[in-house]
């Protein structure tokens, strides 16, 4: 007892010390647990970071692979398009010869059988030509090379021309062809050639698939909220109609209503696909409704307004042009003897006489001296080519400038642009057809009558 000199422990102090020790132990345990959790979190984060990195690498790899695949696909498409464009041009050249010679043969004395065979030959040639044109056109559109041109034109005139050039085809089948125009602006800005292409496609389809009855084209225009002219155009026929199953794929490329149609009516199956894309490029849409009593193709396109908004009187119709061809003074400028013969004899068939110049220089002299309405100008001639000659003509001071239409074997947009750039008004690619010549002559007639496209079309009749 002597050596135990520590003071007696107060139970309250003892409890407090125990409690303090317990609290400290608890805190230390909690801290250890927290450290452990922190470490676990760090490891988990690290793992996630690595996984994210791996995923990112994977995405990069896949993206690179995709880019490569897209590049490959694009270069393949571009190669295909180049090939198609080149081939179609290469095929045109010998086809020029075939159709030209066939046309020449038709001018010689033939018996009935020979004449029928020759007719078939010519038709086949033209079908092949149309097919190539379609493929070339479609290839360009698919490649995104569709370029709409901008020029002022008279819409009523374009519609009348489209109907007029199809009237003969309709009459041959005993069909009536009507054109009913509402109030249209006298001038709009846009691509009249593309409009004409769409109209021509739909009208010739309507005629092709109608065996009796009538075809009518109606057109109306109104200014839309954006200040553009919206043209609503409808072509209604009394033809065989289109089955509901076929309607849905009518505007898809390489499709026709059905395979039997292909056999019976021919065609590339590209015409309506091209129309659809052209109409869409012109800010519009195309649709068709069809029943057993016929089909109606409806489309609308947008054109810009011009500075002189005028309304042309309704009801003008180009139908009288073919019935009463006007007196036109026409000059053919062509150095090749074969082509001279073909062109002159085709015009003769249309009841149209023409003078002949064999060089560009001669043409300029004749135009300066004469009073020509219409000039068909070959592009490639020795001494002075068609472009040079046209430029010279445009510099002349004349009572009236003639319409100059280029004749060329080249079918590319760039060539067209060069023609228009030199001051030409139109463009016929060789081998030209009777219909092309007829169209240009009709057009020159309308213009000669109306005193030019800038003025409202006169009422028909």
């Amino acid at each position, binding site marked *: 007892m002597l050596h135990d000199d520590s003071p007696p422990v107060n139970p309250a102090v003892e*409890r407090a010390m125990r409690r303090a020790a317990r609290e400290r*132990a608890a805190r230390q*345990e909690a801290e250890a647990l927290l450290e452990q959790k922190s470490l676990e979190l760090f490891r988990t984060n690290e793992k996630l970071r690595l996984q994210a990195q791996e995923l990112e690498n994977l995405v990069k790899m896949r993206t690179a692979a995709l880019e490569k695949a897209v590049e490959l696909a694009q270069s393949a498409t571009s190669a295909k398009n180049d090939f198609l464009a080149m081939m179609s041009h290469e095929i045109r050249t010998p086809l020029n010869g075939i159709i030209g010679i066939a046309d020449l043969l038709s001018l010689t004395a033939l018996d009935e059988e020979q004449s029928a065979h020759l007719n078939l030959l010519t038709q086949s040639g033209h079908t092949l030509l149309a097919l190539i044109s379609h493929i070339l056109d479609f290839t360009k559109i698919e490649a995104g090379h569709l370029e709409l041109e901008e020029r002022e034109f008279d819409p009523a005139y374009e519609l009348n021309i489209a109907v007029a050039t199809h009237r003969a085809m309709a009459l041959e089948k005993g069909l009536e062809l009507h054109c009913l125009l509402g109030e249209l602006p006298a001038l709009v800005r846009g691509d009249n050639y593309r409009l004409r292409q769409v109209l021509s496609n739909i009208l010739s389809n309507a005629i092709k698939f109608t065996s009796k009855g009538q075809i009518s084209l109606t057109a109306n225009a109104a200014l839309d909220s954006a200040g553009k002219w919206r043209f609503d155009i409808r072509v209604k026929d009394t033809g065989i109609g289109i089955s509901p199953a076929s309607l849905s794929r009518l505007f898809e490329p390489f499709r026709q209503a059905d395979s039997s149609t292909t056999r019976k009516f021919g065609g590339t199956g590209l015409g309506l696909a091209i129309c659809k894309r052209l109409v869409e490029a012109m800010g519009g849409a195309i649709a068709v409704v069809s029943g057993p009593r016929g089909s109606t193709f409806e489309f609308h396109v947008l054109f810009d307004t011009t500075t002189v908004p005028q309304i042309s009187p309704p009801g003008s119709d180009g139908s009288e042009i073919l019935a009463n061809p006007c007196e036109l003074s026409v000059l053919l400028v062509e150095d090749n003897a074969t082509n001279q013969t073909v062109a002159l004899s085709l015009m003769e068939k249309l009841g149209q006489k023409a003078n002949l110049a064999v060089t560009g220089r001669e043409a300029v002299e004749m135009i300066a001296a004469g009073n020509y309405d219409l000039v068909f100008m070959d592009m490639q001639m020795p001494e002075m080519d068609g472009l040079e000659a046209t430029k010279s003509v445009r510099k002349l001071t004349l009572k009236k400038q003639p319409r100059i239409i280029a004749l060329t074997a080249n079918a590319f947009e760039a060539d067209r642009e060069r023609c228009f750039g030199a001051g030409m008004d139109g463009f016929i690619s060789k081998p030209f057809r009777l219909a092309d010549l007829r169209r240009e002559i009709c057009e020159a007639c309308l213009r000669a009558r109306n005193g030019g496209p800038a003025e409202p079309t006169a009422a028909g009749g």
Partner: protein
Amino acid sequence: MKGIVFTKFIEMVEQKFSVDMAEDMIEACQLPNGGAYTSVGTYDHQEMVTLLVQLSKMTGEAVPDLLRSYGHYLFGEFARLYPVFFEGVTSSLVFAGQIDEVIHVEVLKLYPDAQLPKFETLSQSENELKMVYRSDRHLGDLAEGLLDACIIHFGEQGSVRLERENLKEPGDPVCFTMIRHR
């Protein structure tokens, strides 16, 4: 068993009885960690039983009564510490009905290793909630205290009645029915 059950239990003893009583209880139990519990730790369920039996011995109150009292205390602490679970909840029936689907889901986010009791809802209507409590710990009395405190928390002690039935099934589940009678 999660540490919070221990720390809150000791807190309750300190408050309801006395700090000394809590110390003596811990001292008497000869616990492996000397009673140094932390809410983020996990401990053997048997230690809880030891503590309860000791407290009963010291206070003369039966273990089930102590557990019910603890349930009341624990619920008050939950309400104070986790008010987010009470947001937008206006009745004890709604709150009790979402213990498994809402509250225990949140608990598992903080303590992935927690072994939680199951409150399986058998039927629920606007005026009646019937559910079964299942747990390896057989703490049906604690659950009863919690649910009772829940009714009081929402001020429904006059309008909601809690009925209890011990089911004769393996695991000794308990069926609780909360009935709104007015």
